[in-house]
């Protein structure tokens, strides 16, 4: 198509040629189409809110700070570091089940960058009296979002369950600082760290074995769930595993084609997240592009009685699509075994 023709097409506003779109724009449109198809409505936000609002729930979006400035009336305002908080703030139980999607830029501190970064996000939130079907639908949408993110790119959606971890920690009386350390070790798949805790007498042999099992149990739901079930001894932990099993089985019927795995290194704040949590990866992008989960704890903290689940996709990370270059590093010594 010539430039003139392309321009004409855009002027006519009938079709927009996809070859002018950047990868993150294509992905945003493909994802929006998925969300609308499933009955999600757009939620649009302003760029800033009162700082106090974010300060109150700052652990929820785990960041090193918020970008603030003073409004004309002297109020301290913040460039929004999170979308979910605003969606929840607007939610009223009287409205029934709220299903929304968004495409917004947020502003967060990045330790790696040593400063604030503008992050382009899209995602969905589903809030209300959630049925298992609602939960499955959100996770299915997360999986579908990864599948349409980049043409032909392999992807992986990893699930964990904060309710299960909380129940197991309760069963084993893992509390306070030890619980925090245990979560850090789980998140880092740090088996030798668990062994060290056992050797210095911080944890019992039962705790060591359970943490070790959670770290080494990773993979397709069909192989992981029976192993995890064997670790559970309370109704709370068993019911969490059953929920995980039901959701994975529903997703398999929808054709997750081996992209789904269970991985307890996916960790979120126990104070806010109480159910399924997820992280999504695209082959060649070095960090998780999708994160989310069930966060009834946040609604409770905001004085609202309902369930909530959602996820966000980091569209800005999709800029890194030329991933072949890292394997072109010139090796001086190309050799066979030594």
């Amino acid at each position, binding site marked *: 198509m010539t430039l003139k023709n392309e321009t004409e097409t855009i002027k006519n506003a009938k079709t927009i040629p996809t070859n002018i779109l950047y990868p993150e724009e294509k992905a945003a449109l493909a994802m929006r189409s998925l969300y609308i198809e499933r009955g999600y409505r757009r939620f649009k936000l302003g760029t800033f809110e009162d700082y106090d609002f974010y300060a109150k729930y700052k652990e929820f979006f785990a960041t090193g700070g918020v970008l603030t400035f003073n409004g004309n009336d002297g109020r301290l305002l913040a460039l929004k570091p999170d979308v979910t908080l605003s969606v929840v703030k607007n939610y009223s139980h009287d409205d029934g089940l709220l299903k929304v999607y968004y495409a917004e830029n947020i502003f967060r501190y990045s330790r790696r960058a040593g400063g604030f970064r503008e992050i382009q996000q899209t995602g969905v939130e589903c809030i209300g009296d959630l049925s298992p079907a609602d939960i499955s639908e959100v996770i299915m949408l997360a999986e579908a979002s990864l599948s349409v993110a980049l043409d032909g790119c392999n992807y992986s959606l990893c699930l964990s369950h904060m309710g299960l971890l909380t129940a197991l920690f309760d069963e084993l009386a893992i509390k306070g600082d030890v619980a925090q350390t245990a979560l850090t070790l789980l998140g880092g798949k740090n088996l030798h760290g668990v062994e060290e805790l056992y050797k210095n007498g911080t944890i019992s042999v039962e705790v060591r074995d359970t943490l070790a099992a959670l770290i080494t149990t990773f993979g397709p739901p069909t192989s992981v769930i029976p192993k995890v079930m064997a670790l559970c001894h309370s109704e709370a932990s068993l019911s969490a595993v059953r929920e995980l099993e039901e959701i994975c089985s529903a997703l398999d019927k929808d054709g997750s084609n081996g992209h789904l795995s269970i991985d307890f290194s996916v960790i979120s704040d126990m104070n806010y997240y109480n159910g399924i949590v997820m992280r999504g990866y695209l082959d060649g992008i070095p960090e998780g592009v999708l994160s989310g989960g069930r966060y009834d704890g946040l609604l409770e903290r905001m004085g609202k009685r309902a369930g909530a689940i959602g996820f966000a996709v980091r569209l800005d990370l999709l800029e890194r699509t030329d991933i072949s270059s890292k394997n072109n590093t010139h090796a001086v010594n190309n*050799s*066979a075994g030594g």
Partner: protein
Amino acid sequence: MNQINKTLNIALPKGRIGDKVYDIFVSAGYGCAGYDGSDRCLVVENRDAGVKYLWVKPADVPVYVERGAADLGVAGKDILLEEAPDTFELLDLGVGVCRLMIAAPRGFRDDTGRTLRVATKYPRIASEYYASLCRDIDIIKLNGSIELAPLTGLSDVILDIVETGTTLRENGLETLDLVFNVSARLIANKAAYRFKNDAITALCGAIKASLAR
């Protein structure tokens, strides 16, 4: 979109510890024929074994791994605690063993009525360690010869790596508290762990077997 190949890119720390670590990879069957560490090439590869080594400055290893330029890397626990990269810590390789310690001139007694001045290469670790003790400190970030700081009145104590303690003794210092035991750790990029899991699991298994011998 091109799929990346399944070669494992491994960032190793240049220097003495890196040489020891490379020997572990060689014993595990992941060496590169003809490479003896004496040349200055920064990238060496064994295509048959599916590994490519990138020799980088020790403090840069977590950056290479976290940002995905390397799938795996080997870094000291001191660097990992200081940089706190978002990576998996898969193995303790048991080399480069030393201790992160607080040390001070012989006979030093902490006056809790004053802010404690701490000289260190590790400001984050120092800050977290003393925060856990509710002790108010003034961190003095140095890049080397940390032992000199209390001798010149620049600091009250130091937080630094101690191997044998000889340098401390020769400079009239003694150790006070252990902050952390340090050794070289194998770390992995979280995305690479998912997409190159078979290769990473095989390599970890071979290294564990080699360390156990």
